[in-house]
């Protein structure tokens, strides 16, 4: 990035490189465990969201921390993204250079405008041969053969982690092997890298009683000789074998398995020049563990910039600096390597994410994306009232937001935690769960409101952004950029200007590698089902999860014809500490970069038809020189 830094760091870098072991050097890899402390696969299927009935039961575990013992909530979610560059098409047809993130998992879902976040059973699957060209189309669609829009994505199938492949077989020599009852403890001379449930093969001239193929029972076994991860146990068929120490022939081996090992070829084939605007969509549910792997493939058009990239999960509460994405205070991954971010899903809400390297540059250039967390309330059974479900959440200190007289037990007299936002509603209702998980439908709630007031029939993420074409041109070439004269000329909803906002399906742009790449996967067509009542009047509701990552000015979005009910702001339910909803109805909202807001478009009393979301910042209704377009899209009540 910077010459001075180079000079200053050059010498110590060389010295440390000489002293470091290459074994732990950086490389591409993914992480998506199938079982964790919080989500033990023995108790719980981590590949689906269970219904929410009560808090996860925690009990003291053998290692000194709490572990779930029953009623495990949430699941494991994984996603892989590339950090690099790419091109997008602006509303006036201009091809614009991006610094950008692209999808490296869930590529079919991303192409279809869905989140690329996957359960382990999907993420941890090897893909078809993804060839060079437009990678997202190599799976079932022939690259560069599209004829017009919308692009047909029906042939796509693959949603796993791009590049995932079998790890290498591993064999270690055994330092010590012993037996207690039928439980055999094996201590290697180095870590074997096994997981519980792996198949391990023991062989050796002097360990015949131990030899054979077994299933690993426990890993990270404390022992007097080596670090715990050198040791594991398995169950033998025979008991009473003598301890064998410092054998010269005994080995333990595992067959190749999926352990996060990736083949860099498909990573590069798929990830290079494949940036999206906005960056890949992410969605998780409360109680999920989220493993987000950022793989830095480099920026092909700017080889002079050996840029690192990071993920800043904007708004993550009580964040650790380690996973916060600010390079000066945490890890920033280099080109040719991967870093996995780890988050326990925070309270429900509309968050967003972006790179935090040189933010004025990387954000303007397009490294911005959307991320939202769905509430526990979506998983409440249709036989349970939302009030009861929210009361249940008060029983877990992590999810509680207590207030006096809230009806939860035990009664409290203190004032609510000053940073919690959804106490029990002041007015109790009998609304029952929509059971989104049970039905597999699109309906849900924006927050754990406890009264059903944030219900929606459909939800749409909408991200506002602006591009300065001069800055992007300079960013593609090799000049130092100016910041104070930054002036956006393209005003984007989900990376597109009107009329592209109403083009169905993904947009594709030809990159400088000659291939077409999916560049802007998200249209912004808001389709609200009328859901006519007995009188024939519409009742449908659409949740708009609006975030703004403009880097130079505020933007306003107005609704023509359908009132906007604002229910959340900055990923928090609008509710006071006494439980009163502070929702308000408006016809426009204004956001700065770094803000988000939840709006429900309520079609009640509105005739079916086509309506518009547009910006009253009238100079933003343009696509550079064209006095037409900009920040505008259509809303259909159908």
């Amino acid at each position: 990035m910077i010459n001075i830094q180079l000079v200053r760091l050059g010498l110590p870098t060389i010295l440390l490189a000489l002293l470091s072991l290459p074994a732990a050097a950086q490389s591409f890899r993914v992480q998506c465990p199938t079982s964790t402390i919080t989500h033990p696969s023995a108790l719980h299927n981590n590949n689906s969201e269970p219904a929410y009935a009560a808090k996860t039961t925690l009990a003291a575990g053998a290692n000194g921390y709490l572990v779930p013992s029953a009623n495990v909530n949430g699941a494991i979610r994984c996603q892989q993204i590339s950090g690099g560059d790419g091109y997008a098409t602006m509303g006036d047809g201009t091809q614009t250079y991006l610094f950008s993130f692209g999808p490296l998992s869930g590529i079919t879902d991303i192409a279809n405008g869905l989140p690329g976040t996957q359960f382990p059973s999907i993420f941890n699957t090897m893909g078809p041969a993804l060839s060079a060209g437009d990678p997202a189309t190599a799976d079932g669609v022939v690259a560069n053969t599209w004829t017009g829009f919308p692009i047909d994505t029906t042939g796509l199938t693959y949603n796993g982690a791009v590049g995932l492949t079998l790890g290498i077989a591993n064999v270690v020599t055994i330092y010590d092997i012993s037996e207690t009852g039928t439980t055999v403890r094996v201590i290697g001379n180095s870590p074997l890298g096994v997981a519980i449930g792996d198949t391990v093969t023991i062989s050796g001239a002097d360990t015949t009683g131990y030899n054979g193929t077994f299933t690993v029972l426990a890993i990270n076994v404390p022992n007097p000789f080596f670090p715990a991860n050198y040791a594991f146990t398995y169950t033998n068929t025979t008991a009473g074998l003598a301890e064998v120490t410092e054998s010269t022939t005994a080995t333990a081996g595992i067959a190749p398995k999926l352990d996060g090992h990736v083949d860099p070829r498909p990573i590069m084939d798929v990830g290079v020049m494949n940036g999206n605007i906005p960056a890949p969509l992410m969605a998780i549910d409360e109680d999920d563990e989220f493993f987000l792997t950022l793989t830095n493939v480099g920026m092909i058009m700017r080889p002079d910039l050996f840029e690192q990239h990071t993920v800043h999960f904007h708004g993550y509460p009580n964040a650790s600096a380690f996973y916060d994405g600010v390079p000066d205070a945490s890890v920033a991954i280099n080109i040719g390597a991967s870093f996995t971010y780890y988050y326990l899903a925070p309270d429900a809400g509309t968050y967003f994410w972006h790179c935090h390297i040189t933010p004025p540059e990387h954000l303007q250039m397009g490294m911005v994306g959307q991320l939202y967390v769905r509430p526990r309330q979506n998983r409440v059974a249709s036989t349970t009232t939302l009030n009861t479900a929210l009361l249940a959440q008060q029983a877990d200190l992590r999810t509680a937001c207590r207030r006096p007289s809230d009806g939860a037990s035990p009664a409290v007299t203190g004032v609510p935690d000053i940073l919690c936002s959804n106490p029990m509603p002041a007015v109790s209702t009998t609304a029952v769960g929509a059971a989104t998980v049970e039905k597999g439908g699109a309906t849900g709630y924006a927050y754990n409101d406890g009264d059903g007031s944030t219900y929606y029939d459909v939800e749409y993420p909408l991200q506002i952004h602006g591009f300065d074409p001069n800055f992007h041109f300079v960013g593609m070439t090799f000049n130092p950029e100016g910041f104070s004269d930054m002036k956006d000329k393209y005003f984007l909803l989900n990376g597109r200007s009107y009329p592209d906002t109403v083009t169905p399906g993904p947009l594709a742009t030809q990159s400088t590698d000659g291939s077409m790449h999916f560049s802007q996967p998200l249209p912004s067509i808001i389709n609200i089902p009328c859901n006519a009542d007995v009188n024939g009047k519409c009742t449908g509701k659409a949740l708009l999860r609006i975030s703004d990552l403009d880097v130079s000015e505020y933007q306003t979005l107005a609704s023509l014809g359908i009132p906007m009910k604002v229910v959340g702001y900055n990923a928090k339910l609008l509710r006071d500490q006494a439980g009163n909803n502070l929702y308000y109805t408006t016809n426009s909202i204004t956001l700065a970069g770094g803000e988000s807001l939840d709006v429900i478009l309520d079609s009640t009393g509105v005739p079916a038809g086509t309506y518009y979301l547009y910006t009253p910042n009238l100079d933003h209704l343009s696509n550079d020189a064209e006095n037409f377009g900009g920040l505008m899209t259509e809303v259909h009540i159908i």
Partner: protein
Amino acid sequence: MSAMTLKKAISPMNRLIPLVMAAATQLVWAVAHAAAPGITGPTFNLTAQPAYLSQPDGQTVYSWGYGCRIAPAGFAPSAIAGASCSTMQVPGPTLIVTEGQTVTVNLTNGLPTAAGNTSILFPGFNVTATGGVGGLLTKEAAAGGGTVTYTFTAGSPGTRAYYSGTQSDLQVEMGMYGAIIVLPSATPAACTTGPATAGGSLRFAGANGTAESFWTERDFRLAAAAYDNAKTCYDREYLFQFSEIDPNIHNQAMAQVLAKTGCVAANPACRLEVPTEPYHPAYFMINGRSMPDDMDTNYAPQYPHQPYNGNPHMHPGELTLLRIIGQGRWQHPFHEHGNHVRILGRDGNLILSQTDPNSLAGPLLFTTTTTPGVAMDGIFYWTGKGLNWDAYAHNPASQDPSAKLPCTPDANGYNTGAPTAINYYEWCQDHNKPVQAAPFGDVPAGGPTTLPDPNLFTNGAWYGGSPYLGPNATLRATGCGAGSPAGSCGASGSTPPSGTIANSPSTEAGFAFMWHSHNEREITTNNIFPGGMLMMMLVDSREFPIDESN
């Protein structure tokens, strides 16, 4: 990482700042912290004068500002030594008064005669202006040394802006603004009681006082509460004023002032004709300084006219009051990394529930948009709750006693039983829970993730090498601390990044969070990144005493 080392860390990362400057920042060894310093009254004798503001790109910018004509009655908080009030400063002196006091502000116009009259507006107060000459919005101090007096009652607590009411488009741009803080007349009893009860907030100022005195920390608060309400108790406080500078306007003002030196106020030609549009600001400042200058000390001698810094620190669980003011002309989306902020009130008006005067109703924000002339009070805290791993990397199998500290949850789940514990306010549900899948150093295995090797320089020159809080945990996580297996401290005993001079784990090893304008182009200084409206907030483990006294 300490503020000082962060400053060193960030400074050389921009593309244009000369090496000289990067070196210069390393000569300043004092560890800078912030608080909300100001002068006390209730009578303030101010003057408006010109001077030059220092910018980190090496430029000095001709500006106007308020200052102390004579020494003020006192400085607050008293724990900050070396306080001063020059005859011109930006922002103007922070006026600290107590609810119910009659405040008198005597203003003398020390601006160049060509700059004309000047004045101060105190929005939110019922001001009586005496003396001076007539003006549009209030009475003014006449050009060429005139005076005017403003008197008002500090009716209600809170933070508010003050600024020039004369030719505001130019005078405010030139630097004529400041803050007035009204402290509540009585401390709500709850602010000094013990730890929270069931369902309670982190309202434990009394217990926090025990922790502070145990670690020999002084109290840098101006008061125990922001308002006359127990919901507004706090443990620590900071004041941030956001403004911007268009250097073209300042340069034109300077050129015209020089050209009209010696002119007579009565002469119609003795006035400035400085266009204030189009507006192209290039400097974006917090408390009158651009990053990294804002992370130097309060009253630092190298910034004689920019006495206030922006350098927040806190311990886990401390309720931290943020007093945020938009000055200048633009809105700035101020993003606080690390957690949300509960807005208590705007312009000194506490926002309460319409059904319960004991419940707050202000919004929870991760981006607190500043608006010119508008002040906000909000509460922020950080505890690490919900990370799903032990932020202190406790390891019950360690040989290191401090790695085996207990965590006894109170009614809200925090470790508050022993205010003297290093892990005071640890979130106990995650106690001892590992984050790493494999053991590393003295950090146990069994967690969900595989982390980069902290001993490898490729992971970042400035990164401290540890995802854990506290110097002890930082060292243990690199394999170099007590309890770590022999030989685990890097190959051949090499020093991990956390042991470099930039990240000495033996001093400050807090979690660092960037607090900045999310109009990201404003975290630049005259087109140089990084700079501008940017500062680093540090969450320091308890054993590191936060000293805000410079």
